[in-house]
């Protein structure tokens, strides 16, 4: 929930950072970016380990903090001599409060997009919802966006606040922390940050500066009015999809892709039911038991991925595209399939 009063900003001296994080670790499980060879990744921070905030962004999105790639749902016993054999039991989980330190605004905003799928009035995905609700998102504004970032035209931005509880702004030897929600307020107390400052103007000018650093754009304004069948049958897909090798890189790296598979695994007499990320790029995703596959070709699967993100999602929720412009799929794709190019082609397509 957004705080209904003028946003509070505190100053955090970097000299005290180590102690502040230590304070936080007493009441939160902490997650943050850490360096791993040439790349950063989010991981749970052991005691005394600091988030490395001197980074651009992590190679994979932090969605796994709320939504792990593999997750146990149920456990069961197959030994017929035991009570309740073959009956599913919920696996125990740690939903104690956790905080992600240094998540980028685009990645935090992505959780809101995914929330529309997992947290609906009729039905809630308990694993995602509980983990999400247990998490406080402490964002880190992007002072120096990269050339593949296109967040400002993907409904987001380098200083975007939606989806965050606190926004940190790196201002040299200190951070400004903008408190956005009551969850953020609670974290502020736990950290002991209380030096209120009036930095509105300074932050605003840094924000504008960062936004001008975004040099890559997409056009999405006409997607909503396009006729689904026209886009679906458009001739450009063959050309756009040709290079695709149908690996799952884009979907696994994407902060807004949520598809999963459910699998049972048995070891001796005990079994687990688990869920794993899945990808619309794989033929198995839609293969019927009969052998029939409605999305049998690579082109159909590429089209599904982009139609879902850029048209179906737009139509279903009337709240923008299912993309925050983080640029991961663009920079990781082995064959340089570029969502920006596809989005612009779709947006400007006339039958």
């Amino acid at each position: 929930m957004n705080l209904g009063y003028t946003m509070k900003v505190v100053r955090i001296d970097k000299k005290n950072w180590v102690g502040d994080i230590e304070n936080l670790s007493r009441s939160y499980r902490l997650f943050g970016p850490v360096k791993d060879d040439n790349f950063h990744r989010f991981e749970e921070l052991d005691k005394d380990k600091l988030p490395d905030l001197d980074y651009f962004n992590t190679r994979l999105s932090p969605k796994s903090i709320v939504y792990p790639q593999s997750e146990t749902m149920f456990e069961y016993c197959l030994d017929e001599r035991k009570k309740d054999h073959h009956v599913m039991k919920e696996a125990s989980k740690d939903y104690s409060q956790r905080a992600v330190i240094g998540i980028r605004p685009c990645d935090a905003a992505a959780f809101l997009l995914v929330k529309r799928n997992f947290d609906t009035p009729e039905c809630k995905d308990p694993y995602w919802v509980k983990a999400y609700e247990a998490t406080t998102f402490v964002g880190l504004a992007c002072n120096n966006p990269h050339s593949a970032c296109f967040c400002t035209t993907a409904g987001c931005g380098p200083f975007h606040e939606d989806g965050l509880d606190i926004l940190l702004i790196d201002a040299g030897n200190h951070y400004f922390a903008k408190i956005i929600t009551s969850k953020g307020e609670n974290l502020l107390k736990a950290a002991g940050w209380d030096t209120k400052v009036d930095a509105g103007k300074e932050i605003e000018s840094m924000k504008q500066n960062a936004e001008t650093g975004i040099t890559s754009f997409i056009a999405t304004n006409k997607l909503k009015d396009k006729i689904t069948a026209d886009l679906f049958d458009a001739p450009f897909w063959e050309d756009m999809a040709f290079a695709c090798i149908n690996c799952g890189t884009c979907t696994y790296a994407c902060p807004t892709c949520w598809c999963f598979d459910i699998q049972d695994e048995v070891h001796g007499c005990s079994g687990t039911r688990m869920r794993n990320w899945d990808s619309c790029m794989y033929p198995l995703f839609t293969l019927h038991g009969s052998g029939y596959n409605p999305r049998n070709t690579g082109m159909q699967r590429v089209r599904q991925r982009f139609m879902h993100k850029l048209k179906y999602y737009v139509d279903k929720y009337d709240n923008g595209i299912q993309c925050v412009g983080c640029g991961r799929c663009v920079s990781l794709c082995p064959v340089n399939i570029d969502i920006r190019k596809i989005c612009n082609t779709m947006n400007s397509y006339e039958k």
Partner: protein
Amino acid sequence: MQNPYLPYPVRIDEIVTETEDKNLKTFKLVFLNPADEEKFYYKAGQFAELSVAGKGEIPIGIASSPTEKGYIMFTVNKVGLVTTHLHSMKEGDVIGIRGPLGNSYPWDILQGKNIVIIGGGFAFTTLRSSIVYMLDPVMRPKFKDIHVIYGARSPEMLLYRDELAGWENSSDINMHITVDATDDPDWKYNTGFVPTITEQKALPGNAETYAIICGPPIMIKFTQPVLDKLDYAHDHIIMSLEMRMKCGIGMCGRCNIGKEFVCKDGPVFTLAQLDKMPKEF
């Protein structure tokens, strides 16, 4: 927070082998906890995930009718990992069931109307549910004429043969059973493909008449022009889609077609709705 992935435990009460090739078996299931049965309040046309511990889950249309109390029934075709294992199970074994899932046939719209049910092969399961539901003494007066065209490859491949015979003799329902071919000299019903029999026997389309079709793609493909010829409007043709599914609650993403999730927004759609969706089913 209720966990929508957690199956209710059920016991297999009865197994009936339906067809000569033994690939179709009907499982009658009884809830281990009676309270779960009340929670499992369903309508004809919905489906459920049958959960076999150690193997996985499989979405299957509910073959019993909500008017049949004390058990729920599924007819399962042996195709993959889970269904094959299910076929090897015996009465008394414990499995799980999750649901009811999906929408149903639009019963509020169908009340007071003529209903033409067209079914083929083993897709007859939710149609059976619908027929039993409509024939319930309390329900029957709420519908006008009920016609059922049901076809299978041969007499031995028809599902629910005892019930079919009963319906043939009932004045509440007009049954048109057909088989593709048979060398049985005593076969007293129709011979011919479903579209042909539909053309001969179905009521003409009008505002008061709805057709419900469920069957293999090839049957649907050839029945649809027949219904067009009979003047059925596309919003009066109701179909149930098949799609690979996992979660059954619109979350895992795989049954997505256009902006719909077949498991949650379907599986029942009117042809008018399907006309607007990408042809990916």
